[in-house]
């Protein structure tokens, strides 16, 4: 069987990204028109979440539902993992349970690559540690391209805890590969100290970082960062990095304000930024379903031939 893995954005070609966004956009139209979007091939997909998630898991379930795939859930609680089984053994077990694809979220960076080594079928990374979260970035890209027409040439500021964020990495790779200018904005303690292999530039000052931005992506600030001493206080962060009615004026008039959720209201964003005309937070959630439909079909090799991009499927087990 010919299949692909979706482990991250970093190793994708721009043409792959364009195909995925195009497929997602087409699924969205068809679902909204009430058309049948059933996949030409039906598969049994395992959802493996070793970390809590509501929206991402529901979104994958919805995507599978629209495509007519069967989904089986597997959580680390109450599973063999809690009895000391290694991740490799769990992955191999699920392979011989005849699951055809795995969607996996795991707290360790690189765990999706490990799963891909041992599964022998498509792996979709639903977030691995602080490394990548490719379907989030694809959903965000669909949202931006709906609002702005194209990604190329846009100025995008990714604001907040970049160091610990898989969303920042995947979005940074995607946007820079598609020709956008990416700026990472945050305190020195929350940006990597060496960005030479990172898809964007560093800005420690919010206002210069978002100046002229077409898109502002806020990242969630975990309370743990305050306990670790990486941020002095929530108040300090709010004062220096919050997107609100005052700071947003430094960006373009029609800029988008995005957030992967869940939001700490009053910290990363105020109510006006979160709920106002700039906000795309609800579109992001909805679009998450359609890019995950695209992701399923793309990994299974069901890419429409109408697409101008030639399929570059890897054959057999990697």
């Amino acid at each position: 069987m010919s299949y692909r893995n979706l482990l991250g954005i970093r190793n994708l070609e721009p043409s792959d990204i364009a195909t995925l966004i195009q497929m997602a956009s087409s699924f969205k139209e068809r679902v909204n028109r009430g058309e049948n979007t059933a996949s030409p091939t039906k598969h049994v997909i395992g959802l493996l979440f070793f970390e809590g998630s509501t929206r991402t898991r529901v979104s994958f379930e919805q995507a599978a539902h629209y495509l007519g795939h069967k989904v089986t859930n597997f959580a680390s609680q109450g599973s063999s993992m809690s009895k000391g089984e290694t991740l490799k053994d769990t992955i191999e077990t699920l392979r011989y349970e005849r699951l055809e694809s795995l969607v996996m979220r795991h707290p360790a960076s690189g765990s999706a690559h490990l799963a891909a080594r041992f599964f022998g079928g498509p792996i979709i990374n639903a977030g691995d540690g602080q490394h990548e979260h490719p379907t989030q970035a694809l959903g965000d890209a669909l949202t931006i391209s709906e609002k702005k027409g194209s990604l190329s040439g846009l100025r995008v500021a990714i604001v907040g805890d970049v160091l610990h964020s898989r969303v920042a990495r995947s979005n940074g790779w995607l946007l820079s590969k598609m020709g956008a200018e990416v700026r990472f904005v945050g305190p020195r303690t929350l940006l990597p100290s060496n960005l030479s292999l990172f898809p964007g530039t560093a800005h420690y000052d919010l206002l210069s970082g978002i100046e002229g931005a077409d898109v502002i992506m806020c990242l969630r600030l975990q309370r743990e960062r305050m306990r670790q001493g990486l941020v002095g206080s929530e108040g300090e962060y709010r004062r220096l990095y919050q997107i609100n009615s005052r700071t947003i004026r430094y960006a373009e008039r029609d800029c988008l304000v995005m957030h992967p959720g869940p939001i700490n209201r009053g910290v990363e964003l105020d109510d006006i930024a979160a709920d106002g005309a700039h906000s795309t937070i609800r579109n992001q959630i909805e679009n998450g379903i359609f890019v995950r439909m695209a992701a399923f079909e793309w990994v299974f090799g069901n890419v429409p031939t109408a697409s101008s991009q030639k399929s570059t499927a890897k054959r057999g087990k990697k």
Partner: protein
Amino acid sequence: MRTLLKNGRILDPSINMDEIGSILMEDDQIIAVGADIDGSDCEEIYDCSGLWIAPGLVDLHVHLREPGEEHKETITTGTQSAAAGGYTTICCMPNTNPPLDKPELIDYILDRAASPEAGGVFVAPVGALTVGLMNERLSDLHALKKAGIVAASDEGAPIQDAALMTQAMELCVQFDLPIMAHCDETSLSANGCMNDGATNAMLGLKGMPRSAEEIMVMRNCLLSLHTGCQLHVLRVTTWGAVEMIRQAKYLGAPVTCEICPQNFILTDDMVGDFDPRFKTTPPLRTTVDIDILLQALADGTIDCIASDHSPHAAYEVDVPFEEAPFGMVGLESTLGLTLTHVTHKGILTPLETIRKLSTAPAKLLGLDAGTLQPGGTPVAQICVIDPDLDWTFDVSRTFSKGKNTPFNEVRLKGKGVLTFCGGEIYRDAQFNPDRYETFDLD
């Protein structure tokens, strides 16, 4: 029984000898070395023309894993691996389970190493500096010394408390024990799994900053300077740490240090897409570090080359990168890697290479090794090297239980082909025992 190793290039750094000649052994002893040796009455003759004859190699930094982690390595497999790598004397690190903090455990190691199944090399145990390596109170260093340890170490559990390290150094001065220090300021490196730089930022892995290593190297060097305790810094990896050690030596501190092949060959970007075979502590650094480390090796700031042989079971390595254990196996690749990446590149002469791999490490811990001179060691310790042998390192054919190394299937130039420790303990398939017959016609 008399044995002759004839017509080799004799490299003996203990007397700066580099000349073509032969070595005559009577039973397990070297009785003559030089150009004009009459070997006419020898029962066994090895023709060594085109080969180097060096003192058996000495590795100050080996994890034999026994007791407690026999699934990774045993004293038997580890010493066999050492013999195959050209080593005749190795130091085993104390971070076993339980750690080597009691004389009975030292007796056990020495017994096991002397058993007939073992590889036939000398094992010099390194004791745990603190009880259980818990860094709360010091081990009974006097009793450990009497039992046979050659040094004490905090390997695997670097002592953070400067007062505790000072006390350890004071007692080690009194008992004439060098300290082998694992230098890591763990408040900076905690949960880190690779060098803090561009690659870990890209991969979303927590970094181990170079300052974590350098701060602890500096602290330990200063404590060594002020207490007079002999300090051996394990595994130097950064240019900053080299400069700290250079300065400490300049100030007269009794400090030495080692480097491992991975740290002068590999860089952090080679971790690629999370390959756990590249995970070491201190971690792989950058090409800038490698340049300075190699200079420091040549100018003598770095005293010796060690393997940091760290075997693990396959299932322990097939896990997400951040959960994988640190280290790689090295006993059977260190000589080949050093010859390929240092000697053949002209960074060290053959004589200086052997000094870093044998004479210098033996001397700095006072081990009976590292020389070819008659009576210089209790029994003959010899490593015969084919410096030009092209070979591929195949980890599936190694003696070590651990197969964790990024050097598998790497092409190398130069290999140990014969090892003697008393008698012959290793003969490589590439060494033809009959080759002398085609030459020995005069």
